[in-house]
């Protein structure tokens, strides 16, 4: 049996084969979507640049050299230099690490919380559902950016607090999705069969329900990434996120604000990085949604 046959068979012999087959089918659907491929390239590029930042960046992101401050973009400094003579390209490259760290941390905190709240809410129903969804709705009906601002104001500025504040504002959307998915699975026969076999509620939720919620969750998290990056950059711009001299893109734009009318490159360059990465996640998320969710396909 060739690899292609093994991947596309209707009767997978093992769980591993079934998973590989689904991944293969999704990848093939994604490959047919040019925008999604652009997204994959951008996101992979972000990860690679972040991983190899020390080798890719021509200079140190914090080394100052006042003799060459505010130089325009040139062959030597592709993105110019900032007010302390630091090479902006190097800072943008090192900034990928901060951006990647923020989105990863937010996803790792918010997605599981939302997943568990939603699954518990949908599985048990009744007053637990009403209580948890009431809470979720209150958070959902709140403006996210303002809420994050207020939380950071109370917690104090800093990158960790920015992550916490953004995570607090993102989990409710995931809870809603997980609940909707759980409601469609809850009364399925395989769940009833597992229950008859004596499985506990905990086991049913953890082993049988949560894994089925993950694909729509992955789509939603990817689509949200752009918003998370923008919020983090906004907090950095207001001076509430990453603190100097960290090369966070939003904070860099904020430093360049004073010179934007004459030395436009200081504020503009990090913005292009933000746009590129956010667009990449948008494209990838759109493609994933079309590939994983046949209902939403347009």
């Amino acid at each position: 049996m060739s690899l292609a046959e093994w991947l596309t068979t209707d009767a997978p012999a093992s769980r591993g084969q079934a998973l590989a087959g689904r991944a293969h089918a999704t990848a093939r659907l994604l490959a047919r979507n040019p925008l999604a491929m652009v997204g994959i390239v951008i996101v992979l590029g972000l990860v690679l640049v972040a991983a190899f930042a020390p080798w890719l960046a021509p200079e140190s992101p914090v080394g100052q050299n006042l003799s060459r401050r505010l130089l325009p973009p040139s062959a030597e400094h592709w993105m110019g230099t900032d007010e302390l003579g630091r090479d902006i390209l190097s800072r943008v490259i090192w900034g990928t690490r901060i951006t990647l760290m923020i989105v990863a941390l937010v996803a790792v905190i918010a997605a599981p919380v939302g997943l568990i709240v939603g699954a518990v809410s949908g599985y048990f129903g009744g007053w637990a559902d009403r209580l948890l969804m009431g809470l979720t709705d209150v958070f959902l009906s709140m403006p996210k950016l303002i809420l994050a601002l207020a939380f950071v104001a109370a917690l104090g500025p800093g990158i960790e607090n920015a992550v916490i504040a953004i995570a607090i504002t993102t989990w409710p959307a995931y809870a809603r999705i997980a609940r909707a998915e759980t409601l469609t699975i809850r009364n399925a026969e395989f769940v009833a069969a597992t229950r008859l076999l004596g499985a506990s509620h905990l086991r049913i939720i953890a082993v049988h329900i949560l894994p089925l919620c993950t694909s729509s969750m992955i789509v939603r998290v990817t689509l949200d990434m752009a918003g998370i990056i923008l919020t983090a950059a906004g907090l950095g711009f207001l001076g509430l996120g990453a603190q100097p001299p960290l090369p966070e893109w939003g904070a860099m734009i904020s430093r360049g604000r004073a010179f934007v009318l004459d030395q436009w490159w200081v504020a503009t360059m990090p913005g292009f990085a933000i746009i590129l990465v956010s667009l990449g996640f948008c494209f990838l998320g759109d493609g994933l949604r079309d590939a994983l969710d046949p209902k939403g396909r347009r």
Partner: protein
Amino acid sequence: MAATLRPAALPARLARTGRGAAAFVLVTAATFLGLLAITFFIGRVVPIDPVLSVVGDRATQEQYEAARLAMGLDRPLVVQFASYVGDVLRGDLGVSVSTNRPVASDLLRVFPATLEMATIGIVIGVALGVPMGVIAAARQGSWVDQTIRVLALTGYSVPAFWLGLVGLALFYAGLGWVSGPGRVSIFYDGVVAPRSGLLLVDSALAGEWDVFRSAVSHIVLPAAILGFFGLAYIARMTRSFMLDQLGQEFVTTARVKGVPEWRVVWVHAFGPIRIPLITVIGLTYAGLLEGSVMIETVFSWPGIGNYLTTALFNADMNAVLGATLVIGSVFIAINRLSDVLYRVLDPRSRA
């Protein structure tokens, strides 16, 4: 409310309306209470020492104790929350540390500036976004469609504050088409007595056309940038609604009958999506009020967003929470209102 008490004695429809209204009031009240709980939580529970955040770290021990008692922090949390809700309902949001005035009157003074900008923004967003979405859907897959789709996605990927800075550098410093930061040129500051607080309206009413022109050239850029973000979302949603409609059988029937294509698109397919669009526009409007925080910071626009960020830097928690509360309330109110409009206008939800 009487309808919910004696449903059997009244026509069924009235009873249903009453029950719906009661449920609506209940849910709305619960949401506002939730908002209050969150701002209370942020103000009193999250900071390690809320007293210190009010008096500052150079206060003496006596000042500290006095502030602690004045804030009622020696009482149980539940009592504190109840008195907080009472204060807010009476319109008392505390005193701002930086302006030394009640937060409520500060907010009342700055809110019209934000409202003015967001309103012009939503007008731009609707006027351009709806036709763009319709055209994109009518020519699905063409280069027009692709361009509009990518433009709409940029709206999700461009930082508002960055676009503001670039806009200032380009249209103000570079081309000189618009005026710079602020709401009106400094010569005209205070020329027009505030009546509605909306400078465009006030200056027009007073017949001060120089002020009006100056105000227009100041508001154009920030409002257009806000409008772009509104446009992105509205165009995306319009396109998706239209595609749903254009795939329906009645559209095919109309085409088979020989109805001209523009009529099929703009009358047959566009008709049914007007109601869901109202919800989308409502949500966008609320989103623009929120998005104005960043824009106002960049343009030094004297609105609620600028007030909020200034308060953030001065660690003025009363002002921060007051502004959060007001923006949150407006957000919730618009949300609920578009929900009601949807139900009132959609004949299916009445059946």
